[in-house]
Each structure stands twice: as structure tokens, then as C-alpha cells.
């Protein structure tokens, strides 16, 4: 039940252009279910609750992770795999969160994975009907990692509400690819796959928007703290972010620095994920 191969026999491409066309490439998506051995890239799926993360997860992996509308549905991270253009991808579905900065277990799972799991790409799924609310998390994730693709899902519902999302403008403003999607119907999936591959390989160079701190005192404090954090935890992927959280008094990061577990996290010793139950 784990190995779905929904791929039709790929027809011979009549034009050279077809071979590189994303639509053609999408037809060669091979869904690997829970078989995630020997992957080339790790991709994280993040987003607010109820934005369709699990729908995208299922569309890419061929799994049928529970999709339902209640809080904390994806209790911990679920994993699946797929092959695209001869690269194997491991996909991790993170719990839905509004933020990475508060203190719920869901938020810590998502935050720790994006920070310390060092995924090659993080997909942030945003609800097109509530973009204002969703962009908070997008900006928080852009502060942690450069390798982001934003999927603006539920574009059809937004249209019904008379909302048009300027994804090109968003791409420009956020500095990362933004894909309009109707994940339920597979719309936008070929484009999403194309961008995941390009950001993973480095072919697409993102220029993520970072919010300015607008406080010289804070910048000075950071300049003093960052070298200390780096000295205490060599190889930490995002010392600036950790320093900022310490200055903000984040209790879980403070604790992780105090008891040294921050070092374990940065060495990739994050707790093992709970196995995904396939229905």
C-alpha cells in the first residue's frame, strides 16, 4: 500500500520543448508513499492550520494522510516521498501553525525542523482568502531559511470571494517563488514541483525579504550576542535568529541554550518522527 505508481506511460515527446515543459515533467512524478529511503533532497511543508498542507502532501506522495478540519490534526511531522526528474525527495508535513515564535508543541515541532532539520526546501502553504494573516508565518520562515517556495492555495475560493491574488507581485516582494494553487484539483502542482526542484538544486536563487529591526540598540545587542552563540554552538545554522530569540526572552530557546540541547538539535539529533500510519 506504500508504493503508488500512478504514472502513465510517458508518450514520446513530439517537440524538444516538451521534454522540459513542466506539464510533461509533472506526468513523470512518481509517488513513493512512505518509502523515503535514500533521498536526494528534504522538503518541509509548513503553513497556517487549514490551508491544505496535507492535501499537497497527499498529492505529491500518493499517501492518504488524514485530511480533516480540526486543530492539531497533524500532531507531529509525517513523512512521505516522491521522485521528480530522477531526484528522490523526502517530504515532511509539519503541524499547522500561525507562528514559530509562541510556545505550543506544534509550533516547536515546526520551528525545530525548519531551523535544525535544514530542509533543502521549505514550502509555506498560504490561504489565498486570508493572505494577510498567513503572510506573518511566511515572513517568520523567511527569517530562518532562504530556500522557500510559497504556495498560495485555495485560489478558487478567493476568486469566489472576489479576491485576486497578484502572485507575480508577491514573488517580487517576498523574493521567493509564489505559486497559485487549487491543491484539491491538482492545479498549480506542476509549477510547484518545478520550483521545488529549482530551489533545491540552487538553479533558482531566492532573495528572501527580511524585516528590518529598526532599532539600533537591538542591532548592537545582536552584534554582541551572535559571536557568543556561535562560540558556544559551532555549526549552528542560524545564530542570528537564536540570538534574537534569546533577547526576546523565548523560554524554550533559553532552556535549550542553558541545558545544551540546542547543540544536539543543530547536529541533527532531533527526536525521531513518529511513523506515519497509512490508511
Amino acid at each position, binding site marked *: 500500500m506504500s508504493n503508488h505508481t500512478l504514472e502513465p506511460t510517458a508518450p514520446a515527446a513530439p517537440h524538444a520543448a516538451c521534454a522540459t515543459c513542466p506539464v510533461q515533467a509533472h506526468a513523470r512524478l512518481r509517488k513513493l508513499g512512505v518509502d523515503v529511503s535514500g533521498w536526494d533532497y528534504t522538503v518541509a511543508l509548513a503553513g497556517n492550520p487549514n490551508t491544505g498542507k496535507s492535501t499537497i502532501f497527499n498529492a505529491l506522495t500518493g499517501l492518504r494522510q488524514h485530511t480533516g478540519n480540526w486543530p492539531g490534526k497533524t500532531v507531529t511531522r509525517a513523512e512521505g516521498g516522491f521522485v521528480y526528474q530522477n531526484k528522490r525527495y523526502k517530504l515532511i508535513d509539519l503541524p499547522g501553525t*500561525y*507562528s514559530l*515564535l*509562541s*510556545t505550543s508543541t506544534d509550533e516547536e515541532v515546526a520551528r525545530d525542523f525548519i531551523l535544525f532539520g535544514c530542509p533543502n526546501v521549505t514550502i509555506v502553504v498560504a490561504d489565498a*482568502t*486570508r493572505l*494577510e*494573516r498567513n503572510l*506573518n508565518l511566511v515572513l517568520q520562515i523567511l527569517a530562518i531559511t532562504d530556500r522557500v517556495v510559497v504556495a498560495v492555495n485555495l485560489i478558487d475560493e478567493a476568486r469566489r470571494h472576489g479576491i485576486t491574488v497578484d502572485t507575480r507581485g508577491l514573488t517580487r516582494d517576498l523574493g521567493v517563488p509564489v505559486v497559485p494553487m487549487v491543491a484539491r484539483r491538482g492545479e498549480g502542482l506542476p509549477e510547484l514541483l518545478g520550483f521545488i526542484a529549482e530551489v533545491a538544486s540552487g538553479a533558482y536563487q531566492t532573495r528572501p525579504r527580511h524585516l528590518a529591526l529598526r532599532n539600533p540598540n537591538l542591532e548592537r545587542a545582536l552584534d554582541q550576542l551572535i559571536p557568543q552563540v556561535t562560540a558556544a554552538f559551532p555549526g549552528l545554522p542560524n545564530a542570528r535568529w537564536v540570538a534574537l530569540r534569546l533577547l*526576546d*526572552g523565548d*523560554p524554550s530557546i533559553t532552556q535549550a541554550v542553558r541545558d545544551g540541547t540546542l547543540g544536539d538539535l543543530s547536529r541533527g539529533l532531533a527526536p525521531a518522527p513518529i511513523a506515519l500510519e497509512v490508511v
Partner: protein
Amino acid sequence: MNHQPSAALSTTLDQIPCGTTIRVLSIQSEGVVRRRMFDLGITPGTLIRVEARSPLGDPTAYLVRDTIIALRREQARQISVTLSLEGEPA
């Protein structure tokens, strides 16, 4: 837009009757709770409509940026708001 009317025109969110839309002036809570308010979209300048109050008056449901959010009275008391705002939908 000026979000800072004189102090006499402000109150706290827990004092606002159902159906009224007001604008947030400032948030008094600190630390984790303050961060949580920001993450829920409650920031200075945000429009909030009081949607429904539970039978005992606590918690109360608020419409914040197209999402219904329930706050306890002590949380709402930490949010300073304008007294009233005519004709502007949340």
C-alpha cells in the same frame, strides 16, 4: 491614518459590546502572551469586531482579520482600543 486619539476616547476590549467594531490602540500584555496576540493578528491599528459573548461573559469571540478568535476577559482587558468606530466593517 491616526490611531492615537486622546486617552479619554480609549477603553479596553473586554468593555466593548457585541456587534461593535473598534480599533486596537496598544497591547499591555508582556512576554509570551504579547507575542501570542501579535501572532493572532492583534496588533496596534487592527480592526476587531465583537462577535459573540458566552453566557457567563467569558470567553468572548472576536472577528480579527477574517478569523474568529476567542479571548478570555483578562486577555481582552490587556488590549486598549478606541471607544467606537462608526461605519467601518471589520
